[in-house]
């Protein structure tokens, strides 16, 4: 459904007199299959939004090729526009309009007739449980309601592919869970959904497949489970008093290790063998121990092994 080869984009950024070329996206290859929820995971500034905006025809790539829903991005952006929907991160509703007005106009901008546009608006308003507020001005909506209007606007013309840029950023946990259900519903209706996110749990729980992006490049692609399986071994998480973290890191230098505010994580071949050794090492260094857990690697661990940094630090 989406295929890109070597997609590139750089920007010139000015800081005072200095001009610097920032390579935001440096050669992205992607393959997204029909009917999947595809996640683009990475820290802020990794180039996710720039890639998405190129795919949505909003900015022109400097190089590379892309085919989206059968249309060539560079040769025929107009046809791409007809086949995709795009929902920006910052929202897209006008304070003084109502959701219904916005939806009808949006459908009509896609060339849909008035009567059909009204029917479609009614249907998506019901689908997104917005009927109750449909004729109120957008400025009266809650964050979650507004976000649902944004997504409804992105799919009113029933595109084959819908791009959602950070769809749950800024939502409370309940609205987030609600939004995940909405996104799964889009997949159930046959749409291919392409989302960007910097939330690990979101990529893990929601996406069929993900690509992890860092510094303008894709560092790993696969199913969340498959990516985690690629990291051999186990993760041992040692919970500690905050002031003991440094001492623990000192005592465990022989392990591949990552320190956090109140815990350290160790990447080991076999947790069952490693845990007694870890305990002995900490005991020998008189580090007070809080908790110790053994778990399978998370997507953060995948990111860490690929980039040497933790996604959580962002």
């Amino acid at each position, binding site marked *: 459904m989406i295929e890109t080869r070597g997609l590139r984009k750089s*920007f010139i950024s000015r800081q005072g007199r200095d001009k610097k070329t920032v390579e935001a996206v440096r050669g992205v290859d992607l393959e997204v299959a029909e009917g999947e929820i595809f996640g683009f995971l990475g820290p802020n500034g990794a180039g996710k939004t720039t890639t998405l905006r190129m795919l*949505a*025809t*909003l*900015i*022109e790539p400097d190089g590379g090729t892309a085919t989206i829903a059968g249309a060539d991005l560079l040769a025929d952006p*107009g046809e791409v*526009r*007809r086949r*995709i*929907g*795009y929902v*920006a991160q*910052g*929202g*897209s*509703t*006008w*304070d*003084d*309009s109502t959701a219904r*007005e916005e939806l009808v*106009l*949006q459908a*009509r*901008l*896609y*060339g849909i007739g008035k009567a059909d546009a009204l029917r479609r608006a009614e249907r998506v308003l019901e689908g997104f449980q917005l009927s109750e507020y449909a004729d109120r001005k957008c400025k009266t909506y809650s964050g979650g309601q507004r976000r649902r209007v944004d997504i409804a*606007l992105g799919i009113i*013309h029933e595109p084959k592919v819908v791009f959602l840029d950070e769809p749950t950023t800024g939502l409370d946990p309940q609205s987030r869970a609600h939004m995940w259900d909405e996104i799964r519903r889009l997949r159930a209706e046959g749409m291919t959904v392409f989302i960007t996110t910097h939330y690990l749990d979101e990529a893990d729980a929601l996406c069929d497949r993900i690509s992890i992006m860092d510094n303008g490049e894709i560092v790993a692609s696969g199913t969340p489970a498959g990516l985690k399986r690629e990291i051999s071994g186990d993760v041992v998480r040692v919970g500690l008093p905050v002031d003991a973290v440094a001492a623990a890191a000192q005592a465990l230098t022989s392990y591949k290790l990552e320190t956090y505010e109140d815990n350290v994580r160790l990447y080991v071949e076999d947790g069952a063998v490693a845990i007694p050794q870890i305990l002995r090492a900490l005991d020998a260094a008189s580090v007070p121990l809080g908790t110790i857990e053994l778990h399978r690697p998370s997507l953060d661990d995948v990111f860490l092994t690929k980039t040497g940094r933790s996604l959580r630090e962002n």
Partner: protein
Amino acid sequence: MKLLRDTSLIFNRQMQLLLRNPVWIFVGVFQPVMYLLLFAPLLKPALQVNSNAEAYEIFVPGLLVLLAIFGGLFQGFGLIAELRAGVIERSRVTPVSRLALLLGRSLRDVVSLIAQAVIITLLALVFDLRVFLPNLLLAYLMLALISLMTSAVSYGVALVVKSEDALAPLMNTVAQPVLLLSGILLPLTFAPGWLQGIADWNPFSWAVNGTRALFRGDLGSADVWQGLLIMAVLAVAAVAWAAREFARSVR
């Protein structure tokens, strides 16, 4: 066909939002009416004309052109608000005509300007201004062209600078010399030769002369067709440029 349809979609939405909040019409008319009431009475002695009607014939056309220039140049602020709300980006991912995104908005500005011009003309009638209807309609065409041009320029600049903080001083800087060099408040017949020489290079000065000729009832004057032609060419150029800005990739 698609252009017409898309333009009317954008225009209708913009009109709907405008009429929802009709306070603009009072704000837009308030300042010109103040000029009409508080400044115009000075004109009869200052211009050394015989009657109020004659003074208004000179002053009202200038006032209307002023309104068209300023009204248009400051429309970009609304667009920046729309950019910020994401409305423009949402339109740009649809196959809608880029020219329609501009024209729909600029035509709304033209309509709102003409509405204000009608109110001011009606008030001026109370002060003994008399103008022949076909001439008045041609004068409104001139105003429409001016406002189409200035609002397109304002939208284009807004898309480039993307911030109110940059747009406001920029537009003021452009508008002030344009205003002084167009003989809007006082005709440039009183100006020294060098000043007239500069003013000849100001297209709005031609528009003001043309509009004054129409209010004077001098339809045959060369000022009329020259003013209309210059404004039409500039309006087309401004629309073409601003539509390109709507089509261009923006970060």
